[in-house]
């Protein structure tokens, strides 16, 4: 076995994370604002009230700026797959091909075609056709997100494929298993509803800025009403789909689930840590173990969250590492041994194929198929502790996401009450709160992805391929250079967006 440079993995991961996080600054606003604008335009077409047209055009301008700056930032992720994660790209090629091709075609035809009608078509096409175009842009953006999220979900729950040892590629056996896996469904619904929540918060925050400047009350009231209703429904759906998502994760990624809560020892009727501060446990036999400096718990809630049963067992990190015969959980040593067998069987298959030894080939294939489920564990014989994700980051990002999610529900209810009771202008502190909610919405959204992606470490493909097997053996310095390059490019884009957007906000809706 060759010596491996772990700093290469860390820098490659950091580079991918940086690109994905910057990309995700632009995406959620596009997903949600598209629908908010479509709803506003629908009201214009239905009522004929020109004030709705003015409102629609203002938010459409901000949608356009965000869309234009964000467009193609995701393409860099595909570059990185081919350069930095070549083993992974090869391993999954067939699975990703179909969803990404559909994404490309849909994105091009729906978004690229109809967005032109959205912006150039006022007074040139009929009102109804313009409205249809606006809806199609919003729907197109969300369908694009579906395919990307399906691809991501497959990495977290690889189903519907068969590994071909002759080519070292996974081949899709059932498209519907990939598309409709519980992970894909929960991930898509949870992600898009959280994006709608973010968009609603951005609309309310910007609208309240006008109130701080004592401008555009009628515009603000209508915008806040639409955004608050949309946001409240979206945030409630985010909570419901989050619960669904938690159950899927508890079943298929139990280590990630245990990391959400820093749960070291499994429990029946496990409590949920609503708020906690972690500290190192100083246990040399389990360096990944964390204790709590303080915590507030909700009895049995973790069991309910995991299994919908208050008295069910939730495995902890210790169970998953050391095994728990009573709960039918294999120790990682056993999984590592099986993974080693699978890796050796792959090598044996290749050798037998080259030697034209069909009997040895069939035997190796049989061994590989029997142990393929644990293939990725075979890389961890000397690095067993790496099978536990970073508990601190996963725990805090999960709690920030959930805490802010529930706070947003309360905020939307407050805004609706203020609009309903005609007291929107009465409490100035609410305007500031709405403004603060804009960065908080982005923090919650990013924290969600950090939870999902840090929590599944060390896996690129759950149980099958860890980051250390997925990465291309490049010069680490080259990865550092591109990391810095991306940081500069994306920061420039972000500044450009903020500058153009702030200018348009200051101008306000045109009369």
């Amino acid at each position, binding site marked *: *076995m*060759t010596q491996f440079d772990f700093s290469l993995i860390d820098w490659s991961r950091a580079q991918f994370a940086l690109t994905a996080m910057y990309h995700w600054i632009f995406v959620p606003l596009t997903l949600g604002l598209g629908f908010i604008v479509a709803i506003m335009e629908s009201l214009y077409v239905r009522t004929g009230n020109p004030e709705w047209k003015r409102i629609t055009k203002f938010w459409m301008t901000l949608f356009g700026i965000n869309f*234009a700056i964000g467009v193609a930032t995701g393409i860099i992720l595909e570059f990185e797959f081919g350069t930095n994660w070549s083993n992974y790209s090869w391993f999954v090629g067939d699975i990703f091909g179909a969803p990404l091709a559909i994404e490309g075609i849909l994105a091009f035809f729906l978004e690229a075609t109809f967005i032109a009608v959205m912006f150039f078509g006022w007074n040139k096409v009929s009102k109804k056709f313009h409205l249809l175009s606006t809806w199609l842009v919003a729907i197109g953006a969300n369908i694009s997100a579906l395919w990307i999220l399906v691809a991501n979900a497959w990495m977290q729950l690889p189903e519907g494929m068969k590994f071909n040892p002759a080519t070292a590629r996974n081949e899709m056996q059932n498209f519907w298993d990939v598309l409709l896996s519980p992970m894909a469904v929960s991930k898509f619904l949870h992600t898009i509803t959280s994006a709608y929540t973010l968009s609603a918060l951005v609309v309310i925050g910007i609208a309240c800025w006008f109130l701080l400047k004592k401008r555009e009350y009628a515009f603000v009231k209508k915008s806040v009403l639409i955004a608050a209703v949309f946001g409240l429904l979206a945030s409630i759906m985010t909570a419901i789909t989050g619960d669904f998502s938690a159950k899927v994760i508890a079943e298929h990624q139990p280590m990630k689930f245990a990391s959400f809560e820093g749960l070291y020892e499994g429990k029946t009727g496990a409590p949920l840590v609503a708020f906690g501060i972690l500290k190192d446990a100083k246990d040399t036999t389990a360096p990944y173990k964390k204790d709590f400096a303080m915590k507030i718990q909700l009895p049995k809630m973790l069991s309910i969250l995991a299994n919908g049963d208050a008295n069910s067992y939730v495995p902890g990190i210790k169970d998953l590492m050391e095994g728990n015969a009573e709960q039918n959980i294999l120790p990682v040593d056993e999984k590592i041994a099986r993974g080693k067998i699978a890796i050796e069987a792959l090598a044996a298959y290749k050798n037998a194929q080259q030697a034209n030894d069909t009997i040895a080939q069939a035997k190796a294939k049989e061994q590989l198929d029997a142990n393929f489920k644990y293939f990725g564990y075979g890389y961890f014989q000397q690095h067993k502790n790496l099978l536990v994700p970073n508990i601190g980051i996963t725990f805090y990002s999960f709690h920030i996401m959930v805490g802010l999610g529930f706070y947003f529900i309360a905020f939307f209810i407050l805004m609706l009450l203020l609009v309903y009771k005609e007291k929107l202008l009465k409490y100035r502190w609410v305007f500031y709160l709405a403004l603060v909610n804009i960065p908080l919405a982005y923090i919650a959204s990013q924290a969600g992805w950090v939870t999902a992606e840090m929590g599944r470490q060390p896996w690129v493909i759950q149980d099958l391929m860890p980051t*250390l097997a997925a990465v291309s053996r490049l010069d680490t310095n*080259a990865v550092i250079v591109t990391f810095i*390059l991306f940081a500069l490019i994306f920061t420039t884009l972000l500044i450009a967006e903020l500058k153009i957007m702030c200018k348009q906000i200051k101008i306000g809706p045109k009369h």
Partner: protein
Amino acid sequence: MQKNIFFRIFNFYFTGFKTMASWGKSLWIIILVKLFIMFAILKVFFFPNYLKTNFKTEKERSNHVIEQLTTKP
């Protein structure tokens, strides 16, 4: 009739770009510069496809990946 449709579509885009607001023009400049940086610089000089650049055939690529997968620590 067909020509007329194409002309109308061309005219739609042409007029749209011609009468575009200044913020729209700024965005298009940003988009074009961004795409140039991504495809003409980053893709070409910093992000060549590792397997396509270093190996000629699919067979060579799969052999390389299998070798990588079976010799990683």
